[in-house]
Each structure stands twice: as C-alpha cells, then as structure tokens.
C-alpha cells in the first residue's frame, strides 16, 4: 500500500481487483422517514485500515450494518469483495459474510461456558471446513492475538481486553477480506483499549483490511484513514501516510 497521501476515487483504473468495499449513493431510510444514511459513496481498498468516525446518531452503525451485509440499503449499490449485495439471496449473503467479512463487537458476544479455542472455532462453523481443521486454524488465530496460553480459558476467566482479543481472533480466523470492528475499545479501560488497537494495527500490517467504527476521535486520529460521518453523510475522508503517524 502506498505510504503517501492519496484520494480514493471509486473508478480508479486497476483498483477493481483490490477493492473490498464499494458503496455508491447508499441511502438508508427507516420506517417513519428517518434517513440514517444519505447518498454515501465509499470505497475501501485491500489492506487499508480506516476509521469511520462520528458522534452517536450520525449513521455510522447503519453504515457498519450495510457494509457488513446485515442490512440492505433503501437505495444505492453495495459491492463487497466484488459481489453486488442487492443481487444475493439470504443464503448467498450468509455465505458472503462467512467467507469475506469478520465482525468485532463492542460487547464481544462470546459464547459463555466454552473455552477460547471453541469460541474462535465458532467463527469457522459456517465455513464448511471440517471440525479438526477449524480447531487447528482457531489455535493459530489465538496465537496471533497473543493468547496461545489461554486456549481453554472460558470467557468469565478472561479480562475484558483478553475477551476482545478472543473476539478478534474469531473474526480473523477465516482470513476475511474485511474486518469490521464496532467500537472495539468501547467496553475496555484505556490500557486494554490501547492493546486492542495495537493488535488491529499489527493485523493490518500483516495485510488485513480493517474498518474501525468509533465515536472516539483520539482512536481515529491514530488510523491512517479517517472517514468522518455526520447526519448520514460523509463530511470528510482523509488519508495520511503511515510515516507521519
């Protein structure tokens, strides 16, 4: 990835194969006429690490859901990893999520009562891989997030930061094209939050494409690209070189 400042043009020549997310004119209206997103254009290339920043109610959660294919837009087109989401029925959309998108939530959403390894392996449950392979990949992923020594620990035996690292391992175990992290540090103290952000940076350096949704400008400021959103519109999209960080 380029280390210099550059603008993101959706139709940039040659960008097609390396484009993970392409949103154009995406509008989302809820019943009652509430317009959460209003003509959003956004392109995310492979290997990017970006923050989607905005105050609560700005539409960033809606944007996350639409990029994550958990919700469909009222208007506009959404293309994830080269697939036009509007054309896909539920089954294929689920398959798309299973193979191309990983989620990290503020509330972790780990399965209580089962160990870290099983929780991470759950991330591959719908991938069609055999069980032994899922567990082996889960062990690898746990090692990557620095929890190789916590394989058997159950969620209640882990700290908040460790839980979020397990959740991140679950999200990346399938090597998704896109990792969506929704306020990943929201439930953590600043030290654990820092560690989680460091982990996301490290994963990005290994090649993962990551979008962090946050209201915290301090976190966003440390990311190479920031997409600021307010009242359902993108108001700023800035990229800076990593060297300047």
């Amino acid at each position, binding site marked *: 990835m380029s280390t210099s400042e550059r603008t993101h043009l959706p139709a940039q020549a040659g960008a097609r194969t390396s484009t993970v997310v392409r949103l154009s004119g995406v509008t989302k209206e809820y019943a009652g006429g509430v317009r959460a997103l209003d003509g959003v254009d956004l392109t995310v290339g492979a290997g990017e690490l970006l923050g989607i920043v905005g105050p609560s109610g700005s539409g960033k959660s809606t944007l996350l*859901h639409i990029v*994550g294919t*958990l*919700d469909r837009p009222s208007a506009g087109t959404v293309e994830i990893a080269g*697939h036009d989401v509007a054309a*896909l029925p*539920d*089954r*294929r959309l*689920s*398959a*798309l*999520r*299973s*193979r191309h*998108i990983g*989620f990290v*939530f*503020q*509330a972790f*959403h780990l*399965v*209580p*009562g*089962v160990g870290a390894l099983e929780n991470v392996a*759950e*991330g591959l*449950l*719908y*991938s*069609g*891989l*055999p*069980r032994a392979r899922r567990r082996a*990949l889960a062990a*690898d992923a746990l090692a990557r997030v620095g929890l190789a020594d916590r394989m058997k620990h159950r969620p209640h035996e882990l700290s908040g930061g460790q839980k979020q690292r397990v959740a991140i391992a*679950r999200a990346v175990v*399938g*090597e998704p094209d896109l990792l969506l992290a929704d306020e990943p540090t929201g439930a953590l103290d600043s030290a654990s939050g820092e560690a989680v952000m460091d982990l996301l940076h490290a994963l990005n350096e*290994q*090649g993962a494409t990551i979008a962090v949704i946050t209201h915290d400008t301090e976190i966003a400021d440390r990311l190479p690209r920031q997409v600021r959103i307010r009242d359902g519109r993108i108001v700023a999209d800035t990229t800076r070189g990593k060297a300047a960080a």
Partner: protein
Amino acid sequence: MTHSRGVRRARRARIGLKAARLGPRDVLHVGSAGLRSRPARVVLSALGIAIGIATMIAVVGISASSQAQLMRQLDALGTNMLVAKPGEAMFSGEEIKLPKDAVGMVGRIDGVEEVGATADLDRSVRRSEKIPEGETGGIAVKAATERLLAVLRGGTAAGTWLNAANGRYPAVVLGHVAAERLGITEPGRQVWIDDRYFTVVGILDPLPLAPEIERAALVGWEGAQRLLGFDGHPTAVYERSTDASVPSVQRLLAPTIDPENPRNVSVGDPSAALQAKAATEGAFSTLLLGLGGIALLVGGVGVANTMIISVLERRHEIGLRRSLGATRGQIRIQFVTESLMLSGLGGLAGVALGGAATGVYAHTGGLPWVVPPWAVGGGFGATLVIGTVAGLYPAVRASRLSPTLALQTA
C-alpha cells in the same frame, strides 16, 4: 500466513459463494449449546414430556404384563381340553344322563390322550354332623375318576389324589376353595358326608380351567358307588387331546358319547373364558391413556414456551451467528434441534420411568415384566413429533430476527 492464504484460496475456488452445510455433529453442537447453559430449565421442561410418556408406557406396560401373565397361564393349562356335559332337556322334567361307559368311549377317539370324569352327587359336606344340613357352603360333592387330575393338569397342595387304594374307602379330596370354606388346611381331618365321616386325604391346587372342581369335595368313583349310592353315570367328561386334533375331537365328542341323540351332549371349552379374559386385559384403559396424552400435550406446550423464551434471551447469539455466516435455515435448524433434544430427553426419561413403574407393578404382583416395543417406539416417536412442532414456531421467529436488531446492545 502464506499457508493459510493458500487454504483460503483453495476453499474459495472449491465452493464459491454458496452457503456450506452444517454436518450432523455441528447441528448437534449448536442445538445443544442452549441446553448445556441452562440445565435446570432443561430438566423442568423435559419433565412435562417425561410424565406424559411415562403414563402412557406404564398404562400399556401394565396391561401387557397382566395379559402376558394370563397367556403364560393359558400356555401352562393348554387350550386342548374339552368338557362334555349332559345337554339341555328337550322337555322339562326329563333327566338326561351320560352313559356309564362314556369315559371309555371318549378314550377311543383318535387324538384323545387323557380322559377323566366327575359325577354330581346330591349330598352335602360339613365339618361335623352337628352342623345343620342346609349349610353346604356352596360345596358340591362329586365322584371323580383317578385320571381326572391328570386331564386338568392339576396337582395337590397337600396329601394325595384319589387312587385305587383310597378310592374305595371313605376318603375325600377337597378342591382348594372347598378346603378354605371348610377351614381345612391339611389332610387327616374328617368331614361329614351323607351319614358318615370321610377322611380328607388331599387338598388340590387352584384349577383355573375347572372352577367347579375347586368348589367340590371329591370322592373315589368306586367309593361313591359303594358308600353314597352313586349310580355310575358321569355328569361331566373331561378329555385332553393333541392340539391338532382339538377340532375333530370337538366334532366327534357328542356323537361318540350318545350316538342316537348327540344333542343330549353339550361340549364346552373351558379355556375359552380365560382367552376372553386375556383379550380384555390387553385392552388398556382408554381413560388413563387419554390422561397420558393430555400430560404429553401440556409438556409440549411447556417445551414451546421454553423455546420462545430461549429465542428471546439469545437474540445476541442469533445475531452473532448470522454475522458469522449462518443462514436463516441454519438458525431454524439450530432451534428445532434444540427443541427436539429437549423433548427427546423428556421422552427417554419417560420411557425409563414408565418402564420402571411397570417393573414395580409387575414385581409386586408377581407378573412378568412386559413393555411392548411398539409402545416405546410410539411414545418416543410422539415426543419427536411434539419437539418438532413445539420448536418450529420459535425457530422461525429466531430465523426472521433482523441481525442488526439482534446485535444491538440493549
């Protein structure tokens, strides 16, 4: 990294954008996840199903056990015994008698293996001469041939049966009901018949095929002729033949005994009544079965209720699974599996409970322990149907849950 990238590429090339199927083991894994996290609730909601199934299994099992007992008894007693008695007189007042040599004639019929006879004597039996003549206690005095007990496949509870030695003397053998009514428990005692004391030489075992013998005091054929003025005409001829010849013997019995007037002889099958009883024992109580059915239904409603609560509580899990790539169908399968396991568990417990209840009943009643496989299969099948029906609505609700709503931190 490069290794797993290779895996990823290979996987994509292989399956494209197609939802993967969950293997049976994975279906069980996701289906049981909810049960494992709430064991107390599982036990309580499975209990309803268990009670229903246990009731049904016990009702069927207990009646089957009683029936098996009767069938076993029938097997031991045999269904190849017939009794010939004097028929109804055409004109009242006319007394029909069987010929004196009826036993010999019946013994010559093909297939007949044993023949015995009794003759009703118009006498009463009492403990002593001091007891008024009218108090017979419902006990008949009969003359009996030596082979009678062999025909009935009976035995003596105490003492001996009539034989050539004691049959000529004032000796008497009591049926077990007669002995009870006279208050005699062992041989050696004396009873008053006609105008003399007879010595009790034996007491018989119960005879389910011949209740009339159970209520009789039996005197030897010769002794009765000598001491009680018996004319030698039998009033009942008992015969036992091979199983195969029962129909032909039945046909030939009356014409053999009285070739001129076969109508004067009536032929009966004492085991027929026992067979009919066995058939009615097998028909279990519909009322109890209905109660079991209602318990089962209530249990099913309990399971459905548990499942609906489970879906509400696990919105986050559903949202998470959808985000991990579960299709709507896979969410449905997960909850139907959970419901099936819940009611299946109840069904298994119910089968065990019902089987145990039947066992206790059979053990205390001295019956064989019988739980028909069709009842077990049917009961367990019913729980699976109930589990599917009860789980379907909650499962559909779960699958329709919007993943974005499910993921909202409430």
